[in-house]
Every structure is written in C-alpha cells, then in structure tokens.
C-alpha cells in the first residue's frame, strides 16, 4: 500500500499506465477488423469456378462456349444495343462462384459494375475474383481496358438463375 501511494505523483507511472492501456485497446479492436479484412477477399470455399468463359461441372467435364455481342441488325425489340450477347454466362444464385480471368491476346478487363467486380485480363496470367449473387437477374458489363478497335463490342452478360434452372442449363450445354 505504501508503494502505491508513492506512485500517485509519479508522472512516469501514469504515462506507462496510459500507454499500455491504449495499446491493449488498440490491439483488441484490431482483431475483429483484421478478421473482416481477410474475410473480404479470401476465396474460402467456392462451389464452382468460371474460367473467363468456360467451367467445370460435376462430371469433370469442361463446358466451353463463346459469348459474342449481338449486332445491331439482329437485335430483338427491347434488348440493349451493344450490350446483348448470344450466349449469356449463366451462374446459380446463392452460390459462391470464382471467376478465373485471363486473356489470349492483349489486356482486357472483365467488369460488371452491378456485381462490384472489375478485373484485368492478362495473357499468361490467371486473375481470380469471387462473387456471391443473392438474387436472380441479369448483370451487364463491358470490357474495361482499351484493347483495340472492337473494344466497344465486347460486352459481358452474367445471368444469375435458380439452382434448378442452372442444372437444366448445364444439361443443355452437353
């Protein structure tokens, strides 16, 4: 008790006490933020991978397709000019999906603003972004890295469907 009373006018004692106190609080708040930070961009357990435009079903077969823009002359009424494609990229809703993005010629970028993804596509490199869509819908995007004269003619259409419809679509592709 005597010792403690003496510390009452000791500035060093309070300085150390406060510094350690603040340090402990900072460390305690750091843990949840780091956890959140790492959870945000970690692809922990994706259910499927979409490889730019081909992916793998449960029979170990790749499904491969091209997705080209529909020209102005072939557009159906009401569909969007310079955005509609012949084969939409169909993925199931409520499923953790990994996109693996690469390019065969020059740098492009795979983007869909409404999904919050934008990722450059480099030849010889595989970039990954993960997506979890909560609802059905059609999500548009465009190549977002100026790549050549037809840069404006490479839209991206991602369609999120229910699991049953997705399975039906998979069966159709084989």
């Amino acid at each position, binding site marked *: 008790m005597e010792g403690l009373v003496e510390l009452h006018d000791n500035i060093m004692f309070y300085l150390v006490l406060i510094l350690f106190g603040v340090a402990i609080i900072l460390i305690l708040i750091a843990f949840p933020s780091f956890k959140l930070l790492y959870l945000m*961009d*970690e*692809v*922990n*357990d*994706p*259910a*499927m*991978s979409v*490889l*730019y435009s*081909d*992916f*793998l079903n*449960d029979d*170990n077969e*790749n499904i*491969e397709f091209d997705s080209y823009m529909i020209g102005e002359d072939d557009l159906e009424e009401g569909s969007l000019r310079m955005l509609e494609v012949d084969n939409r990229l169909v993925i199931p809703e409520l*499923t953790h999906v*990994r996109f*693996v993005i*690469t390019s*065969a010629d020059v740098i492009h970028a795979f983007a869909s603003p409404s999904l919050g993804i934008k*990722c450059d596509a480099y030849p*010889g*490199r*595989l*970039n*990954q*972004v993960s997506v979890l869509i909560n609802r059905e819908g059609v999500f548009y995007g465009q190549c977002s890295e100026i790549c050549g004269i037809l840069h404006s003619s490479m839209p991206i259409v991602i369609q999120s469907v229910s699991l049953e419809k997705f399975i039906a679509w998979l069966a159709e592709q084989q």
Partner: protein
Amino acid sequence: MSEETETKPFKFVTAGFDARFPNQNQTKHCWQNYVDYHKCVNAKGEDFAPCKQFYRAYRSLCPNAWVERWDTQVEKGTFPHKLD
C-alpha cells in the same frame, strides 16, 4: 416435363482455397496442380485415386488451351519442369 425425371444428389466441386496461393493471381495455383498431378501419376500410377484431387484442381483453374499445350510438351518431353 410430364415425364418422371430422376434427380441424383450431387455436389459442385472446384479447387478450394489454398493457403499457398492466397493472392488474386492464381497462375501458380493452376501450374502447381498440373505439375503435382503428373508427379503423382508418375509416382503412384494412373489409377491412384488421390491424384484425382490435383486433376480436378487444375482442370477447374487452367484454361483448356494451356492444358493442351502443356500436354503436348509433356508428351514430347519438353515440359520445363521435372515431373518425376
């Protein structure tokens, strides 16, 4: 859709998270699984089931064109990595 359709239980499988490749760049992830698969097959034989794990991983990560090119390199013996 009046016919009775049979639904089999199934599971989507793809290459999971690998602590060696936490990056956005997954090039090495694909490559490593390709190399590991061939090493595994060379050591344990084509029918060794655990090798399938690597096979599935590289099939879902690597572009088909890359796999084709590597396969021909492996056949010719010009693949730039030891596979034994």
